[in-house]
């Protein structure tokens, strides 16, 4: 059965809340995991494993990275100082509906890309993965 993002929202909210020790109501779709919710790398690991346990949908941190970089080689995604270039920004605008490069106040670096990822982006990724599993 294909899971809609509405089905997955409570799963994600609970996973994030338990991992971060916050209330589920704080986990809003437009909240960024790292910035707004304060998750660190270890928390992201925890969140994804909790989601996997409950939903049986496996998403790794690497999967998120693959979404964000889209298979674009590092040297084509950013410059040698890891500043995301036009190719990278175009890709991010394609995969992250909320992202608009015109709103950047400073150059976006590679280690800042993950900070753009929101709860909704995670929901969308989970739903896509669930749909792909159903189709297989």
């Amino acid at each position, binding site marked *: 059965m294909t899971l809609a993002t509405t089905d997955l929202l409570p799963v994600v909210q609970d996973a994030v809340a338990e991992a971060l020790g916050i209330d589920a109501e704080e986990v809003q779709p437009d909240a960024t995991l790292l910035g707004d919710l304060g998750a660190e790398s270890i928390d992201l*690991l925890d969140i994804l494993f909790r989601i996997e346990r409950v939903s049986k949908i496996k998403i790794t941190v*690497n999967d998120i990275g693959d979404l964000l970089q889209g298979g674009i080689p590092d040297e084509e995604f950013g410059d040698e100082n890891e500043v995301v270039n036009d190719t990278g920004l175009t890709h991010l605008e394609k995969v992250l509906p909320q992202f608009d490069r015109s709103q950047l106040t400073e150059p976006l670096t590679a280690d800042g890309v993950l900070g753009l990822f929101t709860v909704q982006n995670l929901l969308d990724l989970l739903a896509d993965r669930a749909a792909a599993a159903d189709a297989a």
Partner: protein
Amino acid sequence: MPPEILVGTDLVAVERVHRLLSEQPEVAGRVFTDRELSYCAARRSRRSEHLAGRFAAKEAVFKALGGAPAMADWTDVEVVNQASGRPSLRLHGRAASVARRRHMRHAEVTLSHAAGLAIAHVLLVCDPGPGPDTTENGGTHVPG
């Protein structure tokens, strides 16, 4: 031209790592290599501290290389102890690829833990020229 020095530091609560691995044991194999797990398991009374230190080391390397963990597997960064006990870094996969791109030729890592916290500090020396050769097993070993 002088070499470029990249640094990275990470501090992690030992209890946070312990909680993660206790509640979700399957995470261990996704984050740590067999060698790292064996090393830490042999230090029973401080297993969590050693694991936390290695977790911090992986984060510190990612920070030094300028990329988020999402861009590489956690096991791409491995802490290996030399015969003297001194830790050194071994990079694989995507992390090794990024290191080559940054022309990294040497790395130092130091770990410590106290008062419930584990810290790792990494220093990478990068040449302005071509990077180091990869080892036959596909890893880039950088002696400490």
